[in-house]
């Protein structure tokens, strides 16, 4: 496990939608692994939160009892609003990604990333390509076993820290080049 010794109190990890889905997975071993990681982060003093955009990703295509229960589950999280500043930050990320040839990252992931940047927080995810280096740096990672009756697989989960200094430098360079 890696640590950067940054103060952890009051820091928000923004939990990516895939983690929420894993915690409620029908596959008990997968759900247990994801819950274990969330529980560890909470016990470290982190304040777990989600972007309100996750509400859309989480509830879409659910109906009836399943939708009702999923809505109850997502309501247990502190939900960060999608504000104008979040969207502006996401649009800046889109431009920086584009310059690096990173064109396969969804708008939702940029909104989640922007929320973490503005909170000076972290992103907790299993979809590593959605929060690319050097814009995001691994803060902590875990490999958790998913034990099935016949075999064991491993789930790679990580906390990513936004590289705000780099983002600012790149934005500054872009502004100078277009001044």
């Amino acid at each position, binding site marked *: 496990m890696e640590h950067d010794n940054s103060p952890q109190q009051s820091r928000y990890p923004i939990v990516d939608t895939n983690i929420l889905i894993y915690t409620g997975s029908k596959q008990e071993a997968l759900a247990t692994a994801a*819950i274990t990681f969330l529980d560890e982060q909470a016990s470290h003093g982190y304040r777990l939160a989600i972007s309100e955009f996750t509400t859309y990703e989480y509830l879409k295509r659910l109906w009836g009892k399943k939708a009702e229960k999923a809505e109850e589950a997502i309501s247990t999280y502190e939900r960060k609003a999608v504000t104008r500043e979040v969207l502006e*930050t996401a649009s800046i990320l889109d431009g920086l990604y584009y310059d690096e040839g990173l064109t396969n990252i969804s708008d939702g992931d940029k909104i989640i990333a922007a929320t973490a940047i503005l909170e000076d927080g972290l992103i907790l995810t299993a979809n590593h390509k959605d929060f690319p280096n050097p814009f995001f740096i691994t803060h902590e990672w875990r490999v958790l076993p998913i034990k099935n009756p016949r075999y*064991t697989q491993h789930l790679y989960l990580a906390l990513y820290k936004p590289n*705000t200094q780099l983002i*600012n430098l790149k934005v500054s360079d872009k502004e100078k080049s277009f001044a």
Partner: protein
Amino acid sequence: METNPQNKHQLHLYGRTIDIGPGTVPISLGSVSATSIQDVIEKARELSKLGVFDIDQPEQNIINGAR
């Protein structure tokens, strides 16, 4: 306003600089004020039993699969 690109507690947004940190993004209307991990676990277990998310484990997130 003079800005320093090296300042990691500020962000440059379209010609202005804002301070960043915990609480910069407000919580949504109707949101709980803090996540309760006990509530998260309890509700996740209910979803798991109900089979709400009957997904395959995405291969890209699983490493060292030993069959």
